[in-house]
């Protein structure tokens, strides 16, 4: 336990020491100033809403993009994992698009969808799409033949097999894909919000605060972003432990 605290405590001490020495809040704000922002999450910051408000906006955007990505990626992943024909049709396009970073799509997104919610959600969905798709495909292919045959012997048709064997059997992998996808989506939303055109959200907030030299808001914003990312990741892990522990025992 002590070992885990060494580094954080050291960082806090060094930060505060350097901040006091440098004595320049535009470069290194004191921990006190950062903390005062964090401890009043509902206070309005620079006229662009509070920490909580902007967090809510970012979360909404990421949730929307994520859900859209999942609704597209899971069925496609099941189809590509189950039927070789499907895989052959789509895999060329997928492997071509996958290496393109989601943020590289920003100009195109703005050209197609104009500045606004649609283009931001588009980028987020793109970011989450590929990990979910790939994990779904892998999960489906990993579903044991013997499970499928055993259930087929009980009179199951294709729909039964998918509902009762393939989906539950690949759920752990799909969930992992969603966890990774969410992580990427969260990074995308923050980055997308920093680009011109947005006027809310945590990414926007820290960029705006920088413009006003309020670096303590920048750092506070970063802490908030990191905290939310961790919390949501913990949620994914919690569900995995509760529902998918069978996967580990199976191995």
């Amino acid at each position, binding site marked *: 336990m002590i070992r885990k605290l060494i580094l954080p405590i050291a960082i806090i001490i060094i930060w505060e020491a350097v901040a006091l020495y440098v004595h320049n809040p535009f470069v290194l704000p004191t921990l006190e100033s950062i903390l005062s922002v964090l401890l009043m999450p509902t206070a309005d910051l620079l006229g662009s809403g509070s920490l909580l408000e902007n967090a809510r906006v970012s979360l909404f955007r990421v949730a929307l993009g994520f859900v859209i990505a999942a609704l597209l990626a899971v069925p496609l992943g099941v189809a590509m994992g189950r039927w070789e024909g499907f895989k052959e049709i789509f895999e060329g396009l997928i492997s071509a698009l996958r290496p393109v970073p989601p943020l590289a799509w920003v100009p195109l997104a703005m050209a197609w969808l104009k500045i606004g919610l649609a283009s931001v959600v588009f980028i987020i969905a793109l970011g989450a799409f590929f990990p979910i798709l790939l994990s779904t495909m892998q999960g489906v292919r990993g579903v*044991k033949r013997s*499970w499928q045959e*055993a*259930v087929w012997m*009980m*009179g199951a048709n294709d729909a039964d097999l998918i509902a*009762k064997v393939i989906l539950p059997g690949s759920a752990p992998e799909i969930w992992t894909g969603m966890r990774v996808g969410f992580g990427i989506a969260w990074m995308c939303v923050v980055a997308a919000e920093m680009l011109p055109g947005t006027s809310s959200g945590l990414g926007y907030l820290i960029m705006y605060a920088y413009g006003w030299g309020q670096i303590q808001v920048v750092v506070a914003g970063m802490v908030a972003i990191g905290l939310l990312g961790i919390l949501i990741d913990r949620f994914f892990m919690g569900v995995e432990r509760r529902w998918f522990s*069978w996967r580990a*025992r199976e191995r």
Partner: protein
Amino acid sequence: MVFLEGKREMTLQLVGITKSFEQADGKSLVAKVVLQDISLTIDDREVVGILGPSGCGKTTLLRIIAGLDQPTEGEVLLDGEAVSKPGARTKMGMIFQEHALLPWRSVLENVSLGLEIQDVSRSKREEKAMRYLELVGLVSSAHSRPYELSGGMRQRAAVARALALEPSFLLMDEPFSALDPQTRKQIQTDIIRIQEKTAKAIVLVTHSVEEAILLADRLVILSANPGKVRRILEIDLERPRDSMSRPFLEMRKEVLGLLGGG
């Protein structure tokens, strides 16, 4: 507990089953015949053992009977109807070598899965599933997950699952080969008891001569390359069979002799 519900007698017929694969032999494709012209009739309530050296295609044969694989020639008829028709599957229950229970479902949920697919109501299917769990002695494990059970218990659950849809035929593919000898002996005894109680026909693929003689009424001995019926032996030893008794050991000698010449 009534299991012998007045069922119509059913027959399983194998007519000229041949199975060949194409294999690469150097530059050309050669047909490798795995099974050749196998014909067999299995009656209701019979226990038929299929024995043969490795590679004789006995698992392939069982899979063809189950409808999991298609023969290259010939057909399998259940009660006169081709087994490839959807309705036939539920008249046969299959037990695999590795239990193939779904790990995310409890034992009870696994056993009642077949009934779930048949759209039986929850209370009815749980009741039925419990009956069969009782028969195999797993009532106390009903709500456990498969990974919490020992190998022997998992196979029992697999048996209960196969029985739940009340098929006329049970197909078993070396179901006990992964178990330790003690557990294996125990479950063999249980299978005999279950078979008598439920009057199923069983087609058992095994490579244990003892197991085959212990359980079967008839033994189909296959030769390898290609898999052909070498001999069909009637096992008319009295039950309960003692694997140490004279008649048993003599039968074993005979069977080993037939296998050895493969």
